[in-house]
């Protein structure tokens, strides 16, 4: 799993509250990604980062922002959580040397009531 941890692993929150999910990696991988997984949709890319302070949007970025101030940390923020953001969130990394394989974290299950 390339030393990827996600925190928290489970979270229940209320509509309208801000939420921040953290992804931490110990492999010094350059690329980092946030996906969400919903039944029937597989994994969909929210945001990605190709270096410190370099981020860009994925297919389902509305309502999400990210920050990467250090190589090892990639934060995903829901500015004002909505019930449609109830999902399982996965962080992934990819190294510059081996750009073919993505390594995934264990996931964060977020429930927005």
């Amino acid at each position, binding site marked *: *799993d390339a030393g*990827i941890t996600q925190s928290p692993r489970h979270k229940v929150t209320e509509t309208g509250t801000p939420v921040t999910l953290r992804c931490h990696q110990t492999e010094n991988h350059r*690329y980092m*990604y946030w*996906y969400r997984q919903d039944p*029937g*949709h*597989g*994994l*969909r*890319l929210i945001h*990605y980062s*190709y270096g410190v302070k370099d981020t*860009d949007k*994925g297919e389902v970025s509305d309502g999400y922002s990210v920050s990467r101030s250090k190589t090892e940390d990639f934060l995903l923020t829901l500015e004002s959580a909505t019930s449609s953001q109830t999902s399982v969130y*996965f962080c*992934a990394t*990819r190294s510059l040397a081996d*750009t*073919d*394989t*993505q*390594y*995934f*974290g*264990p*996931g964060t299950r977020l429930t927005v009531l």
Partner: protein
Amino acid sequence: SQQGEEDPQALSIQEGENATMNCSYKTSINNLQWYRQNSGRGLVHLILIRSNEREKHSGRLRVTLDTSKKSSSLLITASRAADTASYFCATDPFDTGRRALTFGSGTRLQVQP
């Protein structure tokens, strides 16, 4: 919609039988990858096939790629109960610089002991 679409959505077989899953995609690719996800866990990389390859083997896994039909298949031979998981194909698109994979919605494989 997802770049990759797996077929079937669910598959139930007996231990010792072979399992075949198919994936179709829409755009040109650098490579196609297959991942496994055990219940409640992150995705694990299984095998990668490049766009100039037609077949690849890894242990009990056999992957084929037909770029003219934009399709791939994953064959698991002599299945075991431990192979029970969801399997996802993921494409590495040719024309993006973000190096993010695009995932299909997955095939749920149940291997009965």
